[in-house]
C-alpha cells in the first residue's frame, strides 16, 4: 500500500509544480520584447561510416 505521507508529499509537490509553471508563464508573457529567431544550422543527414 502507498504510504499516506508519501501521497501527501506528492500532492504538495503537485501543487507547487503547477504553481511554479503558471508563474513562469506569466513572467514570460509579461517580459518586454521577444527574442529574434536564431538561425539553426541543420545537421547534415550523412550516415556515420565505421
Amino acid at each position, binding site marked *: 500500500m502507498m504510504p499516506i505521507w508519501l501521497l501527501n508529499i506528492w500532492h504538495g509537490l503537485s501543487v507547487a509544480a503547477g504553481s511554479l*509553471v503558471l508563474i513562469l508563464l506569466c513572467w514570460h508573457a509579461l517580459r518586454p520584447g521577444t527574442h529574434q529567431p*536564431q538561425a539553426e544550422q*541543420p545537421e547534415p543527414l550523412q550516415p556515420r561510416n565505421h
Partner: protein
Amino acid sequence: MPTPDQLMEFGALGAYLILLVWIGMQSSRGIQNTLDYTVAGRDVAWIVVLATTAATMVGGGASIGSVSGVYQHGLVFALVTCAWHMQLIVTGLWIAPRLRQLNLLTVAEFFGKRFGEPARLLAIVSCLIFLVGALVAQMVAMGTITETILGIDYHLAVVAGAAIVIFYSTVGGIRAVVKTDVLQFVVLVSGIGAASIYLLAKNGGFAAILQVTGEAPFQFTTDEWPAMRLITLFFGFFLGEMLVPSYAVRCFIARDVQSARWGVAGSGILLLCFLPVAIFIMGISAQVDPDVQQAVLASGNADSQIVFPTLMRETFPAAISGIMIAALIAAVMSSGDSCLSCISTIMMEDLYRKFVDRQASDGRLLRVAKVATLVAGAIAAACSLVYRDIVEILEFVYDFWAPTMIAPFLVGLFLYRKNQSYAATLCMLSGFISVGIWRFWLGTPGDFSPALFGFLVSIIVFPIALLLTHNLPNSKMFQPQQEQRP
C-alpha cells in the same frame, strides 16, 4: 428552462469558446508562409513549448479516461499513467535536441531522408492512422463531456465543438494551436489543481478516504492488476505515444535545441509531479461520493466515461463547475487541434508536394494545408458520430504506432549507418503485421500488450534483417532522400 446554475455553466463555457475563436483570428494575421503555418516559424520559447506539450498530453484519455481508471482500479491506474510523462522526459532529454537540429516539417520526412521511399510511405500511413484515430477519440470525448454535463445532444456537441477547433486550426495553423494550447494549459492546471485540493479537503484528507474505501484503492498491485499486467501496460503506455507527430512537432517548433530539450522534458517533469496524484484524488473521491456511484450505476456503463464529468457536477458550485467544464473541454480540444495540425502538414508536405505538384509555390501549399485541415476535421467529426468508444479507439492507435515506428526512429537518430534501408523497412512491416496478428487473430493472449509484443518483434527483426541485407546495395527506391525544400 435552464436553471441559474446551468446558465452560469453555459456562460463560462461560452466565454471560453469565444476566446478560442478570437485567438484563432488573431493568429491568422501572423501567418506569412507555410513555415509559420506548420512550425510557427521555429521560434517558440521553452516555457511555451512546455505548456503546449503538456496541454497536448492531457487529452480525453489522460483526464476522463484516467479518472475513470482510478475509480475502477485505484492507485495502480494512476501509477501506470506515469509512463506517459516519463516518456516525455526521455524524449525531451535525448531525442528532442536531435530532432530540432534536423529542421524537419514531418516525421515521415525523417524516414525518407534516412531509409528511402518505402519507409517514408509506411511512416505516412502509420502517422495518419495514429492522428486520425486520436482526433476521432478527442472529438468523441468532447461530445461525451458536453452531453453528460450540460445535457446537450451528443451530435450537436460534437458538431459545435469540432467547428470551433477546425476554425481556429484552419485559419491560424500551428500558431493558433500553440496560443490556444497555452490558454488551455492554464485552465487545465488551475482547474485540475484546484479540484484536487478542494476534493481532498472536502473528504478530510487521504487518511479519512482510506478509512471509507479500505486499502484496496491504495495498493500498488491488485488481484485484477498483477505485477505482470502492470509492467506490460506501463511499457505499452510508455511506447504508445513515443515520438508521435503531435510531440515531434513540439520539437520542430522550438526556438533552438535547448528550448526543444527543456520544453518537452519540462512538460514531462511537470506532469509527472502534477497529474497522477491529482487524478488519483479525483478517482478515489468519486469512489466515496454516493451521487457519482448512483450516476455510474444509472448509466449502466461498467467502464464509465462519465465519472469525471459527474464528479465535477456533483461536487462544485456552478461557477467552479463551469470553469471545470471548460478545463475538460480544453483538455480534449488541445489534443485534437494538434492532431489536426499534423494531419494538414502531412497532407501538404508528404502527399501534395511529393505526389501532386513538386514545384508548388508557398502560397499554394499554404492553401492546400488550410483545405486539408478543414477536410480532415470534418471527416473526423463525422467518424466521431459513428464510433463512440474512446478507450477502444485509443488502444487501437497506440497498439499500431510503437511497433511500426519506434525502433527505426531510434535507429535513425542514434545508430544510423549506411545500407539500413531494407532492414528498417522490414522492421516497420514486421511490427505492423505482428500487432495485427496478436491483436485480431490471436485475441491478445495472456493480456500481453499488443504494442509491446509488436515492438519486441520489431527489435528482433531489425538486427536479423540488417545482418542479411547490409551488404546489398540500395536500389533507387531505397536510397535515402536528399531533396531540400524550395
